[in-house]
């Protein structure tokens, strides 16, 4: 696994030395934030524009207008500034201590941890005061951040950190979304809240969070000198007498405290902690004053405030006031942040030759056959269990009657609806596993899979766009729209990552950025077109086989068959492509065309899988890995094993989702995330050794 420690900024030759330059930049930022705040104050649902605000501020307006400014506009603007500042500072300081330009409250799963903690509290039906719920959010966020940092190692790989954080965030969010679906009344509004919005009910929230934020900010400024020392490297810092471990722990706790305060106040506002420091970093190259944390942290905070307020102002300027109330600010910052993530991934130095192949034993032919036989038995068993189990339990005799067309009405119906769901799960699982195997081979990247790369997200976006604009769209239409979405995202992702070969880190980071953008866009579409139907979004994003019929399964089954045929016919090419960049060329293989063909097949596979069962993550990642661990690297063996594993995994997840909380149900995607996240994290930890 690659170790990417960017050059500490202090080592860069300072280009400009002027102190006045730094002061001017800071002043300009302050002015920008003030201008944005003033604009924000004049926007809203009440008819209180610039003129009324001016009157209110000079105490000459009527009391109603004044109350709007005082109790709604000013709290919103100050919440925006506060949230932006603390997220910017938290991101900057996390990046400094981990020497990692991609560390932020989002990539450390702090937001997801807080979200889950608040969701758990919501389910119990207890309504807590702001301070207490902030404490709960802090505990959740700190736990998640600790887990991510422990798994990825401080100061080590950028990619590992982002992957561990993203994976944990996905797993935690899946659990929270499960709670939302299970307890719709108790958690009402939590879904919208999850997108982050700075609207406030009076000054109470801001006033209660302000001391917490001040303590956090003051603490960080006090440790700023030690943070600077850490930027020189652990050994250098120790040489200067700085307690490395204690400093890291203090900084992470304080940054989590700040993020938790922001989450409590406004929900998770996405990616501000990532973008704000990134915006400030180029300044450090031009003005030496910004090299020191004590000066760069406040500037990062200002940039954060500018981002949050800018997103809010932009939203309210573009969308009519009544609609803007429903669109969360966090969706806008997530979109901006996703673009940032992609751009930074493209600029990130990527050490070559880091992809040492996994050291795997090669099992005997007999062992391989035994494994396949066992897997076939498992898939058969899960299939039969899937058909028999559900709200109403059936017996094999029922199935026999049904197959002969002699079953009674109830049994026929249950099987008529249940069998397509089982088949959809089997085919989608197999298709995603095959897609993952192909992508991992072509990109020689053990972490590539359609979900992580944003291809599944693109497919879901295409499908949601069609379903919202043409409610009566049919099976093939949805599959086509999903394919179009998947094709567009894969052109973007693979196109951007292709420059200089499919470098591991770049591909995965660009993919994660794209995946985040598609999720934000799906949320935006649902909020704008169908605001009272959060279930609709969750159903699409969580992967569900609900209401599937035989014709819905057909596209994915066909593509799976074709994909298997192509992959097994070209299995030697797959072996060569996955080996390294040079061998195939020496053997006269047209590398780019082979790659393109395999990628096209995998995009088709992911798109049809999404059309038939929604976005199901992790299968494309877990199945090929487990297959290689079981039967070795050769694709003649990996292909059948991975497809069987994927089918078994999704079918099991679907079965559990349908039965555990019957008659209500959970999507298969939620269950696979709950199973897949620990495995993904295990892979990361194992890869570290």
């Amino acid at each position: 696994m690659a170790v990417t420690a960017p050059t500490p900024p202090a080592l860069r030759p300072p280009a400009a030395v002027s102190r006045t330059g730094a002061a001017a930049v800071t002043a300009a930022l302050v002015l920008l934030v003030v201008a944005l705040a003033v604009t924000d104050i004049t926007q809203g649902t009440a008819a209180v524009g610039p003129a009324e605000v001016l009157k209110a501020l000079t105490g000459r307006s009527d009391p109603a207008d004044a109350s709007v400014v005082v109790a709604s506009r000013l709290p919103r603007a100050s919440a925006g500034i506060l949230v932006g500042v603390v997220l910017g500072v938290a991101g900057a300081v996390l990046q400094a201590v981990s020497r990692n330009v991609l560390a932020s409250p989002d990539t450390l799963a702090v937001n997801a941890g807080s979200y889950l903690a608040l969701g758990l509290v919501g389910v119990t039906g207890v309504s807590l005061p702001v301070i207490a719920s902030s404490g709960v959010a802090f505990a959740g966020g700190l736990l998640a951040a600790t887990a991510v940092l422990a798994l990825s190692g401080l100061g080590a790989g950028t990619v590992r950190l982002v992957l561990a954080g993203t994976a944990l965030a996905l797993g935690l969010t899946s659990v929270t979304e499960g709670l939302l679906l299970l307890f719709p009344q108790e958690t009402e509004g939590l879904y919208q809240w999850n997108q982050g919005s700075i609207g406030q009910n009076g000054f109470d929230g801001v006033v209660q969070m302000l001391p917490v934020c001040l303590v956090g900010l003051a603490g960080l400024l006090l440790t700023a000198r030690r943070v600077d020392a850490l930027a020189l490297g652990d050994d250098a810092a120790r040489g200067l007498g700085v307690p490395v471990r204690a400093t890291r722990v203090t900084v992470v706790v304080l940054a989590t405290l700040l993020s938790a305060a922001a989450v409590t106040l406004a929900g998770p506002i996405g990616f501000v902690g990532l973008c704000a420091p990134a915006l400030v970093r180029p300044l450090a190259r031009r003005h030496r004053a910004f090299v020191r944390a004590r000066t760069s942290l406040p500037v990062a905070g200002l940039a954060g405030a500018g981002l949050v307020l800018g997103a809010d102002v932009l939203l309210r300027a573009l969308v009519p006031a009544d609609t803007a109330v429903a669109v969360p600010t966090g969706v806008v910052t997530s979109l901006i942040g996703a673009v940032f993530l992609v751009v930074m991934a493209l600029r990130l130095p990527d050490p070559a030759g880091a992809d040492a192949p996994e050291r795997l034993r090669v099992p005997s032919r007999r062992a391989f056959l035994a494994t396949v036989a066992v897997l076939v038995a498992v898939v058969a068993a899960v299939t039969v269990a899937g058909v028999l189990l559900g709200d109403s339990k059936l017996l094999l005799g029922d199935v026999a009657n049904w197959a002969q067309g002699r079953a009674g009405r109830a049994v026929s119906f249950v099987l008529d609806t249940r069998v397509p769901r089982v088949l959809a799960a089997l085919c989608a699982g197999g298709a995603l596993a095959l897609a993952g195997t192909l992508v991992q081979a072509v990109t020689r990247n053990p972490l590539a899979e359609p979900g992580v790369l944003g291809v599944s997200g693109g497919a879901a976006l295409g499908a949601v766009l069609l379903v919202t604009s043409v409610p009566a769209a049919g099976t093939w239409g949805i599959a086509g729209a999903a394919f179009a979405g998947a094709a567009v995202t894969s052109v973007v992702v693979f196109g951007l990552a292709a420059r200089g070969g499919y470098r591991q880190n770049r591909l995965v980071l660009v993919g994660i950025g794209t995946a985040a953008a598609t999720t934000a866009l799906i949320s935006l579409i649902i909020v704008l077109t169908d605001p009272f139907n959060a279930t609709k979004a969750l159903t699409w994003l969580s992967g569900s086989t609900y209401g599937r019929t035989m014709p819905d399964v057909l596209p994915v089954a066909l593509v799976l068959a074709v994909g298997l045929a192509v992959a097994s016919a070209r299995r030697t090419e797959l072996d060569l492509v996955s080996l390294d960049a040079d061998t195939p060329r020496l053997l006269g293989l047209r590398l780019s065309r082979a790659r393109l063909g395999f990628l096209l097949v995998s995009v088709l596979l992911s798109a049809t899988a999404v059309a038939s069962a929604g976005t199901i993550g992790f299968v494309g990642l877990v199945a090929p890995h487990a297959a290689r661990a079981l039967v070795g690297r050769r694709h003649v063996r990996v292909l059948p094993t991975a497809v069987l594993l994927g089918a078994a995994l999704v079918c099991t997840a679907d079965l559990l989702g349908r039965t555990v909380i019957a008659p209500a149900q959970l999507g298969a995607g939620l269950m696979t995330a709950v199973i897949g996240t620990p495995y993904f994290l295990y892979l990361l930890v194992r890869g570290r050794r």
Partner: protein
Amino acid sequence: MRRLLLTAAATTAAVLTLAACGTTEPVADSSAKPSEAITLTDATGAKIKLDGPATKVVATEWSVVESLVTLGVDPVGVADVKGYKTWDTAAPLKNEPKDIGTRGEPSMDTIASLAPDLIVATTDLTPAAVGQLRKVAPVLEVTSADGSDQIGQMLENLDLIAKATGTSAEAATARKDFGSKVAEGKKALAGAGLAGAPYAFSDGYVTGNQVSLRPYTSGSLIGAVNEAIGLKNAWTVKGDAAYGLGTTDVEGLTALPKDVRFAYIANKDDASSTPFTGALAKNAVWTSLPFVKAGEVHRLPDGIWMFGGPDSMAAYIDAVVAALTK
């Protein structure tokens, strides 16, 4: 991993052997008994044929559950029974129906196991799910809401359900009762000098530190009833096409006229649904609103389902009249 797989396979094989070859239901017998058949066309234009008036009825949405209860038909299956009992006490269930899961994704298995004569669904259920339900029993799909004529739609749905369940007499009574309730309400309000008075109904939700309000515009069922009893809907917010619901925040309330009367329905079992007495109590925008100062904010009794049928709307009329003429 391999040992795990082996164990899994072996265990499942054992379970399957135990489950083998039994049946949970006897083989279908084909002798059907003919009785007076009913044929009708539902909201989607689908033809529905019933052998006789349906008695074992499953309902996937609370509004149709309420209609069934009004007509004296006790449904055997209801989506989210607990939620119905919380939010709709104007037409309480007289039996203990089976819970068929969520309103958005009712469980096919559970519905099938009830072997109903008729399933009543609304156009809010996905076409895929309705298609599957049609295989288990005839599905009567009624329009969930129609912003251009909510009361007409509500009564039309009641009539359709009555036809399918052979309770047209009960439907006629309910129609007449509702008509006289509207007339009675209108008279009472006019008597109190409230004819044409500006009035706004809303509900609201608290999430974290934010309050979001949902105005019921004149395109909503409540809004239509308000106009029927002679009140003037004061909302200028635009609602959605089907339910006539808008979105706003506390600021948006400043657009309401000074002499408006404001009413809302919340639920004591759902703390997040009561912002008006909780989160907003100390909000300066809220407290400085002229109608709040004048005490013209009325909490109507819990359990009147805002998207329900004639019973809920009759209870609503009683509640509004009582609140405004107090």
